[in-house]
């Protein structure tokens, strides 16, 4: 080693492989909230800019105690579940049909491409005329909004199923239906689920939009009311509920993925 021309080969590998780090996400949340709390208490952040996190929490507690929380949450969740289930199930079915049949693909792919970029909220007045001012139009808006991304994700996922496996199914004389059920659908499941993650986030956004445009109860209505009164504490309480909803939906999909995609290891 005394020879100056002999040195260890410099290490150049490593990196580009993120590993799970537990608790870091939580720390970021807590740090931001603590910063807001300290800022508002010391007067460094004025009460008009940002409400005090502890006040938001107190508002949330009030909401809980008065039972108003569930009065708003219950219709919102119903709309979300009905609308998203409708949109996702029709979306998955249509996506599979597009992927499997040439005529359906040729006919519907341009249609889906035309529908995808339309901001669905712009269609709410139309839905009100078609499906009524009540729940019908809200279900339709959420369903329609989840439908398009689900279709696109589904037919992409089915297109990516290994053709070799389908060929294998045919070579063993499996029926068409068996091939779809036992090979195509499980093979497309990873893609469908990651599409669903996007679709459901869009569903939450549309839920609030629909409720803002006309609902007595619902988280969107609650946020709109708080906003028009400039009640920042209540506004933030509503926003926090939405965030929690988003996190719960995402966690739910992760659970389903863990269960359904165990084979990927």
């Amino acid at each position, binding site marked *: 080693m005394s020879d100056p021309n002999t040195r260890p080969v410099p290490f150049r590998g490593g990196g580009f492989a993120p590993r799970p780090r537990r608790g870091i996400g939580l720390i970021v949340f807590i740090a931001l909230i603590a910063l807001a709390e300290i800022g508002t208490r010391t007067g460094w952040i004025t009460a008009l800019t940002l409400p005090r996190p502890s006040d938001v929490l107190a508002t949330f507690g009030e909401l809980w105690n008065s039972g108003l929380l569930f009065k708003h949450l219950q219709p919102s969740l119903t709309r979300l579940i009905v609308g998203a289930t409708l949109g996702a199930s029709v979306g998955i079915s249509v996506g599979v049909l597009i992927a499997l049949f040439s005529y359906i693909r040729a006919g519907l792919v341009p249609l889906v491409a035309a529908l995808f970029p339309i901001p669905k909220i712009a269609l709410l007045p139309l839905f009100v005329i078609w499906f009524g001012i009540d729940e019908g139009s809200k279900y339709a808006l959420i369903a329609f909004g989840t439908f398009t991304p689900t279709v696109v994700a589904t037919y992409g996922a089915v297109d990516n199923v290994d053709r070799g496996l389908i060929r294998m199914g*045919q070579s063993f004389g499996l029926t068409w239906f068996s091939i779809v059920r036992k090979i195509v659908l499980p093979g497309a499941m990873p893609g469908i689920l990651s599409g669903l993650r996007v679709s459901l986030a869009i569903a939450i956004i549309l839920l609030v939009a629909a409720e803002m445009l006309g609902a007595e109860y619902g988280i969107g209505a609650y946020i709109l009311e708080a906003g028009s009164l400039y009640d920042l504490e209540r506004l933030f309480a509503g926003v926090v509920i939405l965030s929690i909803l988003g996190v719960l939906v995402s966690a739910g999909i992760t659970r389903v993925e863990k269960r359904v995609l165990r084979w990927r290891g």
Partner: protein
Amino acid sequence: MELRLENVCHAYGETEVLRDITLTVPRGRIVCIVGPSGCGKSTLLRMMGGLERPDRGEVLQVGAPPQGCLNPLTYVFQDFALLPWRSVEGNVALALEDHRTGRARQAEIISDVLSRTNLTEFARALPRQLSGGMKQRVAIARALAVNPAVMLLDEPLSALDAQTRALLMDDLVGLWTRAPFTAVYVTHNLAEAVRLGHQIVVLSRRPGQIREVVEIDAPLEARDNADPALEAKREHLWTLMRDEARAADAELSHV
């Protein structure tokens, strides 16, 4: 049951891949098809199993498939083609489920083929937990489960390393000696062809035509790589193929 090909021709668009192939696969024997890459040997195999239609000529099955045969023409693929979301026994079951054999009979068949391929203790493992050789064993077990009249093997050992290849080759020989089956075995490996084939069909480069059919009479179980007679056959096959392979190689580079 025999498989007979009569004047099979095929082209993909402008590219002629097979020209006038006439061939019989006799019962209880293994026919190896060798040839340079791109000579259409895999296409030929796909036609034998009805996965592709020839442009001209006919692929005929002569005689009835044996009693209890669920899928007369059964493939073993190079990339194994196992469903990653099904366990070993689930993958074998896939081939049986559409045949209404009944639950008990199905379980019986699965345990029989798994024991014949030494996979019994891996019945519940998922494909990702298995080595390449093990995966191909599962695919062979799945093929045996439907009791095929003709097994169609498409370079089944090409994705495996040399040691695993030798082991699986012995397994195949063992399976055949215990219960002789009819098979078409496509490969580009002449050693495999000489070890396993009763008949070796040499195809020319594209468009694939039969150059020669080499017969090897030595019984499978008695074949030894060091046997000079076999070595001579291998050498003969290589002479047949060398120029074709070289020409095919040069040709592909400017397609």
